[in-house]
């Protein structure tokens, strides 16, 4: 309580003071601070702001395939119209949504289960924790190649095991089948990123006060009730942040589908970024690819808005 009050006054004091001086005066008072962040700002202008601007500009042009950008022709919103009216856009968006929602959901749930399991003390906990972190630290390209072989219809271990245990008569063609390819890739993605959710939630679990769990135990709550009434409410903020970060990263996924299927077969595993890459560097239609990127950019910024909002709300509830 007293800490919160302390923070409150600390925040309040500069606000009161700033009312008396003008904005120019305030900038002048902090001139050294601005100088310090200037290099970082310049770098960001070059590597972020300019590409964003240039992408938006390109999205209004028809671009020649030979990269002679001086020959580009202004077409207004035609590129956007082309994308939004194409049937592939709807398919790819559906794929992306399925990919993102299921990857996020399962990565979160499995990460939560792993975090809860690792939160208890048992022999070998440290080793298990290290093992479960491997997927997250392994190179995505390397992992994708390994999984590609695991799924292989002729030499894959997964298919062989399925046959051995009598689950199927002959190995399943995971990656060449329109219906199994996306779920198969989602499995790889979940395997790759559940560790991230696990780390975040393990950190969150550290903040659950031991005394609260004991109080609940004395009050008569069983293990599930303790989780539901004490642990889970404490994980709310960190869960929101984790889910949003996972969603952003999944909307931006590229490596796993690109390496394992290249978006195939017949676009069945094509998602936004692989599609944009195909349009730009496969079909050399930079203008369309730029317009596609802008649409994606708007979606991501909307998500980012909610992400920041969730973060700041977490801060407020801690301070209050």
């Amino acid at each position, binding site marked *: 309580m007293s800490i919160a009050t302390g923070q409150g006054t600390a925040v309040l004091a500069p606000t009161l003071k700033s009312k008396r001086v003008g904005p120019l005066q305030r900038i002048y008072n902090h001139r050294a601070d601005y100088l310090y962040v200037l290099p970082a700002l310049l770098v960001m202008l070059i590597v972020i702001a300019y590409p964003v601007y240039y992408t938006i500009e390109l999205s209004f042009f028809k671009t020649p395939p030979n990269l002679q950008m001086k020959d580009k022709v202004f077409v207004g919103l035609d590129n956007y119209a082309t994308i939004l009216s194409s049937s592939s856009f709807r398919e790819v968006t559906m794929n992306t949504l399925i990919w993102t929602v299921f990857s996020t959901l399962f990565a979160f749930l499995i990460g939560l289960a792993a975090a809860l399991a690792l939160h208890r003390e048992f022999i070998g906990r440290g080793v298990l924790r290290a093992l479960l972190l491997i997927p997250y630290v392994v190179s995505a390209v390397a992992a994708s190649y390994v999984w590609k072989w695991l799924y292989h219809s002729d030499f894959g271990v997964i298919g062989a095991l399925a046959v051995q245990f009598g689950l199927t008569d002959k190995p399943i063609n995971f990656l060449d089948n329109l219906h199994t390819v996306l779920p198969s890739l989602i499995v790889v993605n979940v395997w790759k990123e559940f560790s991230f959710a696990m780390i975040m939630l393990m950190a969150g679990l550290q903040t659950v006060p031991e005394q609260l769990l004991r*109080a609940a135990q004395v009050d008569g709550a069983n293990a599930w009730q303790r989780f539901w009434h*004490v642990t889970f409410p404490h994980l709310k903020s960190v869960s929101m942040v984790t889910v949003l970060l996972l969603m952003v990263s999944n909307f931006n996924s590229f490596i796993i589908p690109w390496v394992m299927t290249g978006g195939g077969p017949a676009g069945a595993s094509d998602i936004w970024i692989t599609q944009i890459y195909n349009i730009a560097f496969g079909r050399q239609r930079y203008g369309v690819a730029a317009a596609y990127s802008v649409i994606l950019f708007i979606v991501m910024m909307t998500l980012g808005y909610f992400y920041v909002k969730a973060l700041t709300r977490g801060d407020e509830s801690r301070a209050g």
Partner: protein
Amino acid sequence: MAEVVLKDVVKNYGAMFAVNNVSFTVADGEFVALVGPSGCGKTTTLNLIAGLIPMSGGDIHIGDRLVNDLDPKDRDIAMVFQNYALYPNKTVFNNLAFPLQMRKLPRAEIDKKVQSAAKVLDITHLLERKPRELSGGQQQRVALGRALVRDPRAFLMDEPLSNLDAKLRVQMRSELKRFHQDLHATVVYVTHDQLEAVTMADKMAVMNGGFLQQYDTPANVFANPINTFVASFVGSPAMSLIPLEVASNGTQTVLQSSEGWELPLSPINARKALAASTKKVVLGARHSTLKLAKSAVPGSVPGKVYTVEPTGDITFAQVFISGAVVNISLEPSVAIRPDEMVFVEFDQERIHLFDGETTMALTL
């Protein structure tokens, strides 16, 4: 309410014994304080009674039931924690209702019980608030309410007042005492503050190093501390202890200081001192039994003033005697200065003698 009986209770982590053969009985409706310094095993003992950690040995009875293998929820106890342990996402009402909801009481009954507990603790106007919107004292009341609402066999309290500021602590102390008297509740109360124990408890269990040192009424513990640890722990300021050696100067038994002086003992005290296992004897005296003189009087020993602490109605002086610090309370009008040489007079009727080797009190 019910009695709580501990018999030879042990809790060890490998070779480390947090609680070592502790036995005591809390009678029905009695308020017992477990006191001791940090790490003495008092909170572990409380957690063992609650069933929050498994026992290594011994038996615990609550009422007529042996609870050794029972889960906390089946022991029918209520607990109040140091930092209140209120559920932050629940309103005060739901915090109070939680133990009843877990026991699947009908809604109307829950409502009735919560309202009546809230009324007793004067928190009815807070029922819709979240814990973070409450002051420390209010949160403490809610924590108490959550324990109270269920009418348990015993209340276990783990330093419930130590997070409150000094003024509120004194106020809540009297409220807790009143609450105990009104409800005739069986209370086991852990505190490191011996003053809380002395003021509130019917009996106090002084613990140190996992062992129960003394279990008696505060008055008896204060008057007859069983060993030097209890003597130096109970009382504010604590009893002063001076390590000396027993000797005879031909006619009389005396306590001898390495500084060269001798303190003659009364016949009774002489017999006590001679009963010590070695020549080493610790002389104990409470601040109020000592007198300060500017010049030597019979039965006094020399010392040097270390600090003088006026508190208003009493001034405490700390005096070095034979290398030990001795607390003496004085009238505020007595004028002494640090580093002044003084003489301290002992009251033979009210001194305590301890065996220097075993630290146990010497008695006849």
